[in-house]
């Protein structure tokens, strides 16, 4: 039981740290995006320093799209971490088998699907802005990610069925 409590506490801490990191990432990306217009000259120098070669206008446009992609990723991660945090909190409260957690798990599934689908715009950026070179998002498909999406949706369904069963059992005399 002590080990389980430690695990729950560590999970809660990990989710909190990840949420803070995600918030910082979101802020950095938003600032980067704003800087690409407000401080266009410095932004260009920064891109040249990154070692990407070729058309500078294309590089700037590509970098802006990458930052927009980063914002979308942070938004997806925000939903995922918020729901995960609420689930961990319900575990530490001692009653995780509630209908709300089945909904949370489903929302985590949607967030994961959204994050997986971001591979497509990532690939499009890589394809549309070759000047970005190695700085472009990785275009590789990740089968593990798709399996995780499927698994979370199936688990959400199982969780919902289990919660309904428990509710029935609780009302059985």
């Amino acid at each position, binding site marked *: 039981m002590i080990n389980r409590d430690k695990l729950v506490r560590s999970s809660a801490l990990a989710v909190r740290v990840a949420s803070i990191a995600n918030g910082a990432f979101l802020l950095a990306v938003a600032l980067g995006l704003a800087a690409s217009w407000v401080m266009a000259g410095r932004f260009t120098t920064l891109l040249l320093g990154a070692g990407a070669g070729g058309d500078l206008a294309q590089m700037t446009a590509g970098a802006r799209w990458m930052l927009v992609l980063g914002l979308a990723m942070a938004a997806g991660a925000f939903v995922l971490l918020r729901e995960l945090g609420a689930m961990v909190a319900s575990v530490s409260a001692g009653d995780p088998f509630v209908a709300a957690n089945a909904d949370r798990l489903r929302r985590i599934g949607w967030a994961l699907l959204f994050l997986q689908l971001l591979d497509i715009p990532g690939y499009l950026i890589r394809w549309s802005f070759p000047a970005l070179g190695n700085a472009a998002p990785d275009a590789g498909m990740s089968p593990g990610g798709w399996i995780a999406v499927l698994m979370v949706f199936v688990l959400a369904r199982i969780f919902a069925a289990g919660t309904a069963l428990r*509710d*029935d059992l*609780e*009302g*059985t*005399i």
Partner: protein
Amino acid sequence: MPIIVTLDAVLDRKGMTLTQLSEAIDITLANLSILKTGKAKAIRFSTLEAICRVLDCQPGEILTFERD
């Protein structure tokens, strides 16, 4: 729910209290109250059997169906 629990009437007839019944069938008074007030979602055959044995009655005397 169209199933009405008429445990009260049978208890009255037998001159028994809910507390005595709960002690006789080893089910908590709280759970038996839930059953009596019709708030239970389901009843186990074992519970029904125990109640019928102690109250010497048929399941139909405890549960009644009433159309909505």
